[in-house]
């Protein structure tokens, strides 16, 4: 199916890239070759169809992408280790490890700081830590929040599934499957109504496809030309079910394209492919060109929730297979996807492009690892919540009465 229904693509061959002054123009071929090699058996998704916007990024910005990916990765690994080794640790997560390039590539194309009426908004899911970090949420405060601390990002009310920080445009996590994309379309509606060039982005899993809200979101986004970017992270599974249990499409992007929405399938393990597709979508939305749909094929290294099957100090989870699950993912599938690791792919591109050398790349990783360790340490020293505060924040002002004492 044609995903280009209503869009004009500036392909790299048509000036988009050749006319660029970027010193990276000549490097592109090498990078592409690298990427394609890395894809191995897989189809090289969307490569070459999209303007190669990432080539114009400054070195700093490219390194920033790499750092963001690493922050997410080490947040996940450090937290998993906490859960596995520290009996006092109470936090949990729906781990994002394996999918880092998606959040990173998308959020790098957004306005993440400034006045609230100018920044772009991100709606996340029940798997929010990667999106939150990529959008610029304060990591120590997030760690404290996930550990139910009074000084956490959301005062200990939220924990992982409701992380929120409007100051960076992170509207937040959402524990439900279904509502977030529709609500995000409402933000996009407001942008258009007030003639702002802000965009709204929603990250949603393949599980969202079957929800009735999927139709509402895409239909209204198309009808009203909303500046909404729907990033479908197709990690192949919702909970224990392969997405083919709930979706007749191989590419979920086909479903979006049917509405006449420009839709892309990208390799979600390659941050620059994600960046390119997101940049195209954001540019279109800001220019009044309406919604876009990006399906990033990706994979999570851990199980749906928490760290079952994981070992401290090791990446990923294996050998966890709850009784009688209809459709449990095969371990070899996990291992195969780990061959195409978003951290490795990003590092290789930066090294190939001469932005970094390997030694510096490794040094950066060590810095990030330490930064995250410190964040968890800081979080663990934060105060616990005051019970009575549970009666606050129901409404903007005041508290509600206690009722549990009769």
């Amino acid at each position: 199916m044609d995903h280009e229904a209503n869009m004009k693509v500036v392909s790299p061959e048509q000036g988009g890239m050749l006319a660029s002054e970027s010193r990276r123009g000549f490097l592109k071929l090498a990078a592409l070759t690298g990427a394609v090699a890395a894809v191995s058996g897989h189809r090289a998704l969307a490569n070459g169809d999209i303007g190669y916007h990432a080539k114009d990024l400054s070195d700093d910005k490219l390194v920033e992408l790499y750092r963001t990916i690493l922050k997410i990765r080490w947040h996940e690994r450090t937290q998993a280790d906490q859960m596995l080794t520290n009996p006092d640790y109470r936090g949990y997560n729906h781990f994002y490890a394996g999918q880092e390039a998606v959040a990173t590539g998308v959020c790098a194309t957004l306005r993440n700081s400034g006045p609230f009426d100018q920044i772009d908004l991100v709606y996340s899911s029940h798997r929010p830590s990667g999106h939150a970090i990529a959008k610029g949420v304060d990591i120590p405060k997030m760690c404290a929040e996930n550990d139910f601390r009074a000084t956490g990002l959301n005062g200990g009310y939220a924990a992982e599934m409701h992380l929120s920080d409007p100051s960076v445009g992170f509207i937040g996590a959402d524990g439900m499957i279904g509502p977030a994309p529709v609500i995000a379309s409402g933000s996009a509606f407001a942008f258009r109504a007030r003639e702002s060039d802000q965009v709204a982005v929603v990250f949603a899993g393949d599980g969202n496809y079957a929800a009735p809200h999927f139709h509402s979101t895409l239909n209204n986004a198309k009808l009203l030309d909303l500046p909404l970017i729907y990033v479908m992270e197709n990690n192949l599974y919702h909970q224990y079910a392969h997405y083919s249990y709930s979706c007749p499409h191989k590419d979920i992007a086909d479903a979006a394209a049917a509405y006449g929405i420009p839709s892309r399938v990208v390799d979600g393990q390659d941050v620059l492919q994600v960046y390119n597709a997101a940049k195209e979508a954001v540019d279109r939305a800001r220019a009044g060109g309406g919604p876009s749909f990006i399906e990033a094929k990706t994979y999570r290294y851990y199980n749906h929730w928490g760290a079952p099957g994981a070992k401290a100090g090791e990446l990923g989870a294996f050998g966890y297979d709850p009784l009688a699950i209809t459709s449990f993912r095969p371990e070899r599938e996990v291992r195969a996807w780990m061959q195409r690791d978003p951290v490795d792919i990003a590092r290789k591109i930066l090294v190939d492009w001469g932005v970094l050398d390997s030694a510096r790349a490794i040094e950066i990783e060590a810095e990030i690892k330490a930064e995250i360790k410190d964040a968890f340490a800081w979080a663990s020293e934060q105060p616990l919540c005051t019970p009575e505060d549970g009666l606050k924040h129901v409404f903007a002002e005041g508290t509600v009465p206690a009722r549990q004492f009769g």
Partner: protein
Amino acid sequence: MAQKSWMYSVLEAVQYEMQQDPAMTWIFELTPPVASNPGKPVINLETEFGRKRVVNTGIDENWMASAVLGAGLAGSRSATYIPYQGALMPLQVIQNVAGKLRHMTGGKASMPVVWIIEMTGQSPGFAGQHSCYEEDTYYAHIPGVRTVIPSTPYDAKGMMVSALRSPDPVVYLYPAGLRGLTGEVPDEQYEVPLDKAAVRQEGSDLTIVSSGAGMPGVLEAAATLTTEGMSVEVIDLRVLKEMDTETLVNSVAKTKRLLTVDQSYYTLCPGAEVIARVAENVDGARYKRVAFPDAPPPASPEMFLWMRPNADHIMGAARALV
């Protein structure tokens, strides 16, 4: 100040707020935001503010409700008018997202949104889905949302102003049966608080509590009972969440007799909450509830009109109680 219809009063409130705030939006489905009133200019929000701010959508009340929520989260005040047929389509998103989001985010989510949820006019003949009156309970059980139900054009305008200006999400229930009401309504904006019941008539023998579409019958019954010599105190709840316990308790502490009147189904109607709150705080009072039976409304006018609480029913119950 002029004699105004309900809808004109409400749209006057909305029009003014939209004129002041160019970011504010309105989403509708069937009922164009248009109202006319003798001696007054026609209000048409769609033509005045254009289709980018005032949009006519498909039949998807969940989208409408969710979209205004998203608009609010993006910093734009927003309101939508949900027709009664779709009155509970948005319940889940209001209950599970909007009502919880401020609290779940430790106060970070701001939702200056209003959902006008139409309730049926309870016209005889339509049956089930087109004559029911039940949304009050569903919405009033949700924490984090202010659920209000005006019963006069004056309150309808004043509470709309307050709702639009509130940082809290507001479910503004609108019983279509009150469409026919007119009243003296000021031209300028004014606020009616979102947390106070109104004592419509003072008395010492009996307290009658109702709300929304129940009020006309209650006022009619109270007038007759008064002429019969009964001293009736009439309370219009106006606000279901947070319910104004104090006004209720003070009244029944005095009258020691409480009759609640609901067009909603008996089980878990707002009156049940009224009685429970009072019973926890007042000793030795007596109680009665008039409500629609726990049955869907039938089409036949003969059956329906017998089942729907009216002034006669209320007078009978009042006499039995005092």
